[in-house]
């Protein structure tokens, strides 16, 4: 089935049903960026409608327009068949459109009840609406299987429950259509399954769900129909049962994509990194890594899986020499790189052959206001190759950077552009290029493809595997289970600051990994 045909078939409402939401001819500009180009989306009442697209394809922009957070420059929105004039979120709420944002819109020191009440207090005094809200929460909990303790503080709740609060907030305000923006990014596979079950319940009770995601598996699992966006425009609108992951990926990227590329068996050599009973605390002195022991050999990729916030960040920072360890040993190629001398360690580690692609490229990987060529040598600026006498050799830096940009497919390949003018994927490729081109023996990679589009994911994965095949040791930390499964030769699962088990990607199932990530099961 081609995309054009699919679009035609979407013009008539589904059998006997009605459209919950119609967005017709939406255009939106952010300065010079054309975020939505003549987008038309129709969502049938009582269905789960998926919207997929790469980062920057305009999915979130479209949803923010439906929700009244942004205004369209052109186009029309119909809700329940009637033209809707949505100026702000309260207008959308009044029309029964509720949104669950990717970053929860919750006030953390508030209770669940207070969060639900916010903006819908029902009177000047809080006491007036409170009892009603409490009763209503209880009813919603019963009807949809969403029980919560209304007096619990949101900051104490696990993310799965926080998300539940977001959904309750929308339902409390009488949402008929629920928009969920990348709802599974922070969930374990089990939590995600529970969410999907619940979305099906909502649909069966006649509510409409719009699910925005970049995970094709979720689209195939749960949606009735899917709209694919690319570069701000709708490129296809298909019934989910008539399509496949492969076709969707191709539509999203605009060319054939190989998902989860294959790799040869690893041939591990000597131990490069040894970690022994490592403890790391966060800024508040709270233990985040609590006794971790493992090693990484030359010629293998070790993946660390886990739900974000279980100590992976601190572990990676300690290994990278950015954060002092509280106790334990770290040995790199047999050298005790120790837990002392914070500040010096990152530099010493680099000299010993460490490359580090940090998790947070905006905060640690790049200096946004620096040109690409400056970013391309950060951390190695003292090396003789970048100097002429005691001055930096700008021409040479630009030359090197230009070469790397071509080799790593960084677009546009102009070394003089500031880092912030590149897209997320291209920024990441620049960081990866810098770390790989300085010939490390051990490469630490945190969230290699966070906020990176499919094309770049494919490229970065290929590079990491090539690096392994060249006999280097690679440690990958990622919250994306698919990525860990595709890349790793061994998988370590972290939960609550400990490595809860090690599994092999050949034998591990997603379910098993999911249970381990939730701290429920140990390795078999």
């Amino acid at each position, binding site marked *: 089935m081609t995309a054009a045909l699919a679009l035609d078939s979407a013009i008539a409402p589904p059998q006997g049903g009605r459209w919950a939401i119609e967005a017709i001819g939406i255009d939106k500009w*952010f300065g010079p960026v054309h*975020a939505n180009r003549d987008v038309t989306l129709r969502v049938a009442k009582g269905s789960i409608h998926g919207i997929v697209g790469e980062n920057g394809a305009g999915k979130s*922009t479209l949803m923010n327009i439906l*929700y009244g*957070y*942004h205004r369209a420059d052109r186009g029309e929105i119909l809700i329940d068949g009637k033209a809707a004039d949505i100026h*702000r*979120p*309260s*207008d959308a*709420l009044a029309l029964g459109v509720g*949104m669950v*944002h990717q*970053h929860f*819109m*919750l*006030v*953390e*020191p*508030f209770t669940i009840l*207070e*969060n639900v*009440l*916010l*903006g*819908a*207090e029902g*009177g*000047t*005094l*809080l*006491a007036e*609406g409170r009892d009603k809200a409490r009763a209503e929460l209880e009813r919603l909990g019963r009807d949809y299987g969403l029980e919560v303790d209304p007096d619990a503080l949101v900051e104490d709740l696990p993310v799965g429950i926080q998300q539940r609060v977001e959904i309750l*907030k929308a339902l409390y305000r009488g949402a008929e259509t629920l928009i969920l923006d990348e709802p599974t990014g922070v969930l374990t596979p089990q939590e995600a399954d529970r969410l999907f079950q619940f979305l099906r319940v909502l649909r069966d009770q006649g509510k409409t769900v719009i699910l925005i995601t970049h995970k094709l598996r979720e689209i195939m699992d749960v949606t009735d129909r899917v709209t694919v966006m690319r570069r701000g425009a709708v490129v296809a609108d298909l019934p989910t049962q008539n399509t496949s992951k492969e076709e969707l990926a191709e539509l999203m990227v605009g060319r054939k994509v190989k998902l989860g590329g294959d790799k040869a068996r690893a041939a591990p050599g000597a131990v490069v990194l040894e970690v022994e009973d490592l403890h790391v605390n966060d800024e508040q002195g709270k233990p985040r890594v609590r006794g971790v022991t493992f090693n990484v050999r030359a010629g293998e990729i070790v993946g660390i899986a886990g739900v974000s916030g279980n100590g992976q960040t601190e572990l990676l920072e300690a290994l990278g020499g950015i954060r002092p360890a509280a106790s334990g040993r770290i040995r790199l190629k047999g050298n005790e790189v120790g837990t002392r001398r914070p500040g010096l360690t990152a530099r010493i580690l680099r000299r010993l052959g460490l490359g580090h692609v940090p998790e947070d490229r905006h905060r640690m990987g790049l200096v946004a206001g620096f040109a690409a060529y400056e970013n391309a040598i950060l951390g190695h600026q003292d090396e003789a190759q970048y100097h002429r006498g005691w001055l930096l050799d700008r021409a040479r830096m630009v030359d090197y950077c230009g070469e790397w940009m071509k080799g790593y497919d960084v677009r546009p390949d102009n070394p003089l552009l500031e880092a912030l003018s590149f897209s997320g994927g291209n920024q990441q490729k620049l960081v990866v290029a810098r770390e790989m081109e300085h010939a490390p023996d051990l490469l630490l990679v945190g969230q290699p493809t966070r906020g990176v589009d499919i094309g770049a994911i494919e490229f970065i994965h290929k590079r990491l595997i090539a690096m392994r095949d060249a006999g280097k040791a690679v440690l990958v930390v990622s919250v994306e289970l698919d990525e860990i499964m595709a890349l790793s030769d061994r998988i370590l699962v972290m939960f609550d600051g400990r490595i809860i088990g090690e599994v092999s990607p050949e034998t591990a199932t997603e379910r098993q990994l999911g249970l381990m990530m939730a701290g429920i099961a140990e390795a078999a």
Partner: protein
Amino acid sequence: MEDTLLLIATMASATLRVATPLVLAALAGLFAERSGIVDIGLEGKMLGAAFAAAATAAVTGSAWLGLLAALAASTALSLIHGFASITHHGNQVVSGMALNIMVAGLCPVLANAWFRQSGQTPMLAQQARFGPIELPFAQAVAKVPVLGPLYAQVISGHNILVYAAAVAVPLVAFVVYRTSFGLRLRAVGENPEAVDTAGVSVSRLRYRALILAGLLCGVAGAYLSTAHNAGFIRDMTAGKGYLALAALIFGKWKPVPTLLACLLFAFADAVQIRLQGVPVPGIGAIPVQLIQALPYVLTVLLLAGFVGKSVAPKASGIPYLKER
């Protein structure tokens, strides 16, 4: 016994008088900062209000008209702060500091221009000030041991603005914790996006908080120039705005702990006045400047070490801009 009681009564009474502008300004800061706007301009607003009150009272002879002028002046300054930092997303500390500097210069200039007195307003007559109020039965119960003098000398006999400050604390606590406005106020200082997506305007909420802050600072300023003193003098706030801000932080942005912090600072001030010129056994008389520094040293010590973790409203100081 009699002497000790008298001393305690005098000190307590002085503490209340000194605490009044601190409490009012700290509550003003509470509204602003809970809404996410850092208000380092408390000092300037108070000073501006003090000048407006004294100048108006000097011309009209009415303390009440002076108070009205103080409210207007302080609220106007608050709105300038809001215009810079809410509407135009300016840096809140810079905007607040600019107000402080502007007011510190402007008031003496205006005083010179209008009253031809170098940087101050004319001394106010007693009827153009807020005078002491004797509470009912003060005389009658004065003879009751301990409680009597306490009521007659500590509780009774202050001017109305002292009582206003006392009432303001529970009132502010009620507004912040028991009303819908209070819920939104607390929310907008923590996560303005949550408020925005709940369909409530962040800017309007913050403006309203700043107006309330302006009104409270207005009362504080009027107290300084038309109740506690009899006229405006240059820099008469003498850092009280900053002290109030410190009390607010010490009080963890909560009304009652903030009140206690203000009372502590005020008590330190009452002690330093009392200690001036009093010889300390073994040391002799301590230089006045050293003693005057006491409340400020206390502030630094408390904020540096003894407060424990004081978590500011999370969005405080960050201009609210919609993301793309």
